């Protein structure tokens, strides 16, 4: 199977796996394929259903509609969380439609099966929708062409389209799409329209359509939903993992100015409902709740990390084997051994977790900044006790997602609250402390490497034992490999001779979830930093070593060579600084990064980062650059500071003062180049994250002479 095909198969599998892991029903998971059946069996059904109903005279499919004035509305069916889908997905439609970009307007699609799969995860939005949106635009263009030819009284073959209009080639006459909308709306929808080969929008650097709203305070996030009679709520929950709440001072909370109600939830938590958010927060404090430790009173993340280290010395499950690693290690002239470790990390989306719900007249309406609208809708129907057709889920803008907003916990909470406030709507807002202490964390992980070198210093054996907590915090898997946990380590791209990768999991009640780049994040850190150890031990240039170990057709080569040119790799760095290099392929794309680092007051300082990325066909170069740059900042923030500690069953950190993230004053200069890639579009949202930690760690190791094998690089706040 080609790499492209593998990658395509991979995101589908990943999407389904993630859904299942998050508790979605098999039927819903099957919806992953629904989006691909656009012109198959789903076609007629989708033509009949438009959610919400449309006024426009021409709407040949769910994704677009054209009005008499030419306004072209594109329904975006993935969540906009900063990654730019509300610009890139319309670009794909506009390109195939040959639209006038200035006439394009974007609507966020509500949760509805008519749109197919709507989850936003696994960097799959553009990858999974590219063909479908091309077809959606292409169908519309074919119909407009036919309408235009009818108006001109000529054959379709004598016509063409140009930026929102149909032209008659011979005479140069032009008629706009808006003028043709009425006629086009009466035509039969073609089943297999010819698509344009020429691209007007795909590949063109295009500014975000939402930049203005977001610069003027007009963009509406979940937390900004305002409705008549809206109540505001906050939930006091057990402080510890698996803890309970004892007595609460309900009357004191009710006495707080603006508090309307105090509700004991089925979970045992206590909600305060108020006239405004702050009154709900103040009411919570007035509860002076008695927080009781549950069965995890002695739970400690340090102990989990210790068990992970121990697990890397155990038997584990086989992930990947090539050759015979044991004899190769036994026969090696020299063996390098090292243990790499990363801690639990929180997401810390800038917009705290929230949701708004209204239950009135036997129907539910929910507003959610979610990465998974379908699961939200199913959750509302299930807990709301009505059929799914009576549940409307509006997807708002997301103030960051990073994988956090794939879990519908706040939806379950707000549905329960809305029963109390009905018919008034209620907005549930988690405090930042709730967010930091009750996240679904990126898991801690440990790697133990044994790398065998021959007399010439060539790698002849690579043994890597990965250990992670069991995904979701449940019982250990009993030897069945969690592919998400080993992504990025399972199959090294290098020719290492004999290879053996094993995996162990350790059961722990600390909740874990998907965190931007998932397994690739911590696994690429370990693999790439270990490879740098080999380079240092054998006194080889880390770039040359990688190029020597990579197969001739590896996509890694071009980005490595390019990033080396960008930073002038062979020239020595400025005095007191060192450079580290890392490369990794994930989500159908590949990226190489170089970090230039110094040590100031015994702390690392990253001055410059260079990145070269190849992600197949590029839709919006500006968007790709922004994602890689943002991924570097996100990954660097975690590498320098990211850590969540559980002590005595409670998360120690609570807000940005102790769950530190990267600030402007420590942000390096970053240069990103996007290479021309052949083939299908690759993913981009998560691609920039994994390389920065190993690049910085390698630079620091070179600078200090001591291998850096543990994150974060700063001491805990």
């Amino acid at each position, binding site marked *: 199977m080609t790499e492209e095909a593998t990658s395509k198969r991979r995101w589908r599998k990943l999407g389904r796996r993630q859904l299942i892991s998050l508790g979605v029903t098999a039927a819903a998971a099957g919806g992953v394929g629904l989006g691909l059946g656009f012109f198959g069996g789903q076609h007629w059904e989708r033509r009949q259903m438009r959610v919400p109903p449309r006024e426009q005279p021409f709407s040949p499919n769910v994704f677009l509609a054209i009005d008499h004035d030419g306004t072209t509305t594109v329904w975006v069916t993935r969540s906009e969380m900063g990654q730019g889908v509300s610009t890139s997905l319309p670009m794909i439609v506009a390109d195939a439609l040959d639209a006038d970009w200035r006439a394009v307007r974007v609507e966020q699609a509500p949760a509805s099966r008519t749109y197919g799969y709507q989850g936003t995860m696994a960097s799959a939005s553009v990858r999974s929708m590219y063909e479908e949106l091309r077809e959606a635009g292409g169908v519309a263009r074919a119909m407009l062409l036919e309408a235009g030819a009818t108006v001109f009284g000529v054959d379709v073959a004598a016509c063409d389209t140009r930026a929102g209009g149909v032209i008659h080639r011979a005479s140069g006459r032009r008629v706009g799409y808006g003028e043709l909308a009425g006629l086009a709306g009466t035509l039969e929808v073609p089943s297999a329209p010819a698509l344009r080969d020429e691209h007007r929008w795909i590949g063109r650097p295009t500014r975000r359509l*939402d*930049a203005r709203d977001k610069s003027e305070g007009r963009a509406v*996030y979940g937390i900004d939903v305002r409705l008549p009679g809206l109540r505001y709520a906050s939930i006091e929950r057990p402080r510890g993992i698996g803890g309970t709440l004892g007595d609460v001072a309900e009357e004191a909370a009710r006495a707080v100015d603006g508090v309307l109600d105090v509700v004991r939830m089925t979970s045992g938590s206590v909600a305060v409902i108020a006239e405004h958010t702050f009154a709900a927060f103040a009411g919570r404090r007035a509860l002076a709740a008695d927080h009781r430790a549950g069965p995890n009173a002695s739970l400690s993340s340090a102990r989990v990390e210790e068990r992970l280290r121990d697990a890397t010395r155990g038997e584990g499950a086989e992930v990947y084997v090539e050759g015979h690693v044991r004899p190769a290690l036994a026969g090696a002239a020299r063996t390098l051994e090292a243990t790499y470790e990363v801690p639990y990390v929180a997401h810390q989306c*800038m917009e705290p977790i929230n949701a708004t719900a209204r239950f009135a007249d036997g129907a539910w309406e929910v507003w959610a900044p979610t990465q998974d609208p379908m699961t939200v809708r199913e959750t509302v129907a299930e807990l709301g006790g009505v059929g799914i057709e009576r549940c409307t889920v509006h997807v708002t803008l997301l*103030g960051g997602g990073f994988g956090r907003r794939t879990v519908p916990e706040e939806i379950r909470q707000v549905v329960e609250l809305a029963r109390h406030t009905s018919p008034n709507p209620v907005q549930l807002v988690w405090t930042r402390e709730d967010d930091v202490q009750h996240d679904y964390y990126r898991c801690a992980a440990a790697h133990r490497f044994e790398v065998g070198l021959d007399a010439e210093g060539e790698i002849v054996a690579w043994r890597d034992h990965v250990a992670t907590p069991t995904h979701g915090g449940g019982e250990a898997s009993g030897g069945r490999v969690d592919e998400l946990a080993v992504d990025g380590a399972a199959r090294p791209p290098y020719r290492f001779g004999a290879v053996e990768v094993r995996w162990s999991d350790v059961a722990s009640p600390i909740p874990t979830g998907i965190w931007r780049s998932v397994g690739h994040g911590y696994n690429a850190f370990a693999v790439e930093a270990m490879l740098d150890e080999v380079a240092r031990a054998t006194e080889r240039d880390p770039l040359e070593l990688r190029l020597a170990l990579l197969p001739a057709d590896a996509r890694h080569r071009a980005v490595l060579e390019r990033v080396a040119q960008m930073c002038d790799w062979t020239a020595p760095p400025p005095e007191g600084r060192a450079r580290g290099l890392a490369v990794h392929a994930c989500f159908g794309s590949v990226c190489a990064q170089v970090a230039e680092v110094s040590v100031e007051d015994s702390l690392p300082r990253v001055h410059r980062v260079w990145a070269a990325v190849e992600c197949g066909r590029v839709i919006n170069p500006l968007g790709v650059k922004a994602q890689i740059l943002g991924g570097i900042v996100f990954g660097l923030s975690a590498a320098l500071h990211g850590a969540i500690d559980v002590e005595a069953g409670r998360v120690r950190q609570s807000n940005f003062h102790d769950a530190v993230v990267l600030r402007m*004053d420590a*942000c390096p*200069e970053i240069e990103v180049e996007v290479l021309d890639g052949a083939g299908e579009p690759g993913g981009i949202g998560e691609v920039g994250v994994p390389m920065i930690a190993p690049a910085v760690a390698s630079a620091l190791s070179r600078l200090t002479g001591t291998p850096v094998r543990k994150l974060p690089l700063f001491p805990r706040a």
Partner: protein
Amino acid sequence: MPRYSLEVNGESVEVDVAADVPLLWVLRDVLGLTGTKYGCGVAQCGACTVHVGGVAVRSCSLRVSRVRAPVTTIEGLGGDHPLQRAWVEHDVPQCGYCQSGQIMSASALLARDPHPDEATLRGAMAGNLCRCGTYPRILAAIRSVAGD
């Protein structure tokens, strides 16, 4: 309940809330000005930054009873502020949630120091967090307005 008179974006308003309610929640939940964001509640992230008497303040940590000067929020900046235009020109926002606060901090900085040096600029903006990593474009946009 106490009644407070405020001047917000050039308009006089009266609000009936308890004295300890932070300006942030008066703006968002009472006056419906949701452009100002809640991010941390403890003046650590800057998402709630507004101008009070022309100075950038964290509205999550300023009680309404202590507001003694005119308040300007992102909505009051007008949309044609050079920084807002620069934000669009430089394609700054990603998720965008922090950007109101970023712009309010930057506009207060440039109002008192139209040509800040690099250290001043980075230092003044270090109180505003962004998780999408738009920092480099924020700096570029501010520099373009500061004329450096």
